[in-house]
């Protein structure tokens, strides 16, 4: 189970020459009087797959939203592909958003558009005009998530898992260099979950995509991750390979991966 998913990944992650694609330096963020992130430092290398785990409500979503400039930090710096994200104005973020795409936790599909129109949207907006090319790439993305039978449905008539998969198709269709997935497996059955894991692996092998995956599914962590980060109490509590995670003596890590609660009656 702890076997590395592919021979190339650890090399990519650990080789000294691997270039940093994303870097978070001392990120602090609070909402009201709640400290959500208290000093996050994290580096992500080109072509790497990082899984982010941690209890619900610990700020995993908040953290990845910082990377794409949806949330500005109170303190700290964010660099993506050499660009200083938190120094940019909304209209200057276009280059970053061309390189990085995101799956939202709630999928965030456009209600007024069909599944097909939703998935075609990033292509149209990035200036792809050829109708056939759009059609073909949309179909390809929807096939990758096993949703190619539901092109003409509106998001409100899809199940939670289908909506999630349509959101994934929209995130991968433009073939960005980096994709942030916020809980891609939640709401999916084990088979559907495996389809997504395989798709993420394929994206990495075929296109060298850098990914961050927020997930609660430990099985898929061991399948796809090059490295794992555990967020706990606003800090990166653990950072290492899946094998290191499994072998970690830290009780908090062990409780989390084995699903033990500390509440005693």
């Amino acid at each position: 189970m702890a076997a590395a998913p592919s021979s190339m990944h650890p090399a990519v992650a650990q080789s000294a020459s691997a270039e940093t694609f994303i870097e978070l330096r001392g990120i602090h963020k609070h909402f009201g009087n709640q400290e959500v992130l208290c000093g996050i430092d994290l580096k992500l290398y080109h072509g790497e797959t990082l899984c982010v785990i941690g209890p619900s409500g610990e700020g995993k979503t908040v953290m990845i939203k910082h990377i794409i400039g949806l949330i500005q930090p109170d303190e700290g710096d964010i660099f993506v592909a050499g660009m200083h994200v938190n120094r940019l104005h909304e209209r200057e973020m276009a280059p970053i958003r061309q390189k990085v795409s995101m799956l939202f936790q709630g999928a965030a599909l456009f209600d007024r558009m069909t599944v097909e129109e939703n998935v075609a949207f990033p292509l149209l907006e990035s200036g792809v005009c050829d109708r056939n090319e759009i059609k073909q790439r949309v179909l390809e993305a929807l096939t990758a998530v096993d949703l190619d039978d539901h092109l003409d449905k509106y998001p409100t008539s899809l199940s939670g898992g289908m909506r999630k998969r349509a959101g994934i198709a929209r995130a991968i269709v433009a073939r960005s260099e980096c994709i942030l997935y916020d809980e891609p497996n939640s709401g999916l059955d084990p088979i559907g979950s495996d389809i997504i894991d395989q798709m993420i692996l394929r994206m990495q092998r075929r296109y060298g995509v850098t990914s961050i995956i927020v997930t609660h599914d430990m099985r898929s962590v061991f399948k796809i991750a090059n490295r794992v980060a555990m967020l706990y109490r606003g800090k990166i509590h653990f950072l290492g390979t899946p094998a290191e995670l499994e072998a970690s003596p830290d009780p908090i890590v062990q409780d989390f991966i084995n699903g033990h609660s500390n509440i005693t009656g």
Partner: protein
Amino acid sequence: MATSAGLLTLPGRTFLHFLTYLGQLTALATELLIAVRSGVWRLKLVARQIVEIGYGSQAVVIVTGAFTGAVFTFQSYAKFKEFGFETTVGAVVSVALCRELGPVLAGLMVAGRVGAAMAADIGTMKVTEQVDALRVMGVHPVDYLVLPRFLAMMISMPFLVAESISFGLIASYMVTSFGYDMPSSWYLTHMIDHTNMEDLSIGMIKGFVFGMLITLISCHQGLSAENGAVGVGAGTTRAVVISSLVLLIVNFFLSILLNYAFPIGSV
């Protein structure tokens, strides 16, 4: 002690809220200006909004105009007859409809119908992260959501006001000639003599300004929606209330301004 201090700071805090609000509206207007100048106008979305806003609001605006014209005529006719001025009713109704009642009532109806829809639509998109999804795909929400609505409103409102005025006049004419047996030529002659293009222009200019204000206020409420469905509902209500009040207040000052530009009764 604490309460008296609270009472003293209340006006200050309200004023501060007001300033913050104005600041946010100004920021949105600036962003809108940048969007206009960027030149990417998404004409397909504008067309769709014109259908929804302009085409879809006609019934509301026509009924409003017609019945206002009718009741205004009905009431003034009786009074004017006491002085033997009943033939001038057409002129009075026409000027009132063009300069005030047409644009204000059409504006209020559109604020209710269109402003609410804008705040609810955009607000729903905001709380379900669809607005953030736009941003992630490199599309500025103001470019995609506000600009098309703004352009559609600027195009639709003057026509809606003109329509409201026209149906008000038709209704007024029908009340006098069928309800009161006034020779229709009298009514028409007086009305045409005392109404000119300036009066109609004032109505349409007002409609244009009201349209911009309604869009700005309602889209702002939508974009700042928070707290799920409850927040969207509250924002929608606020959009209609604020738009309506602002419209009435701005109308007063606009009347003063426009009366300098187009003095009443000048031909």
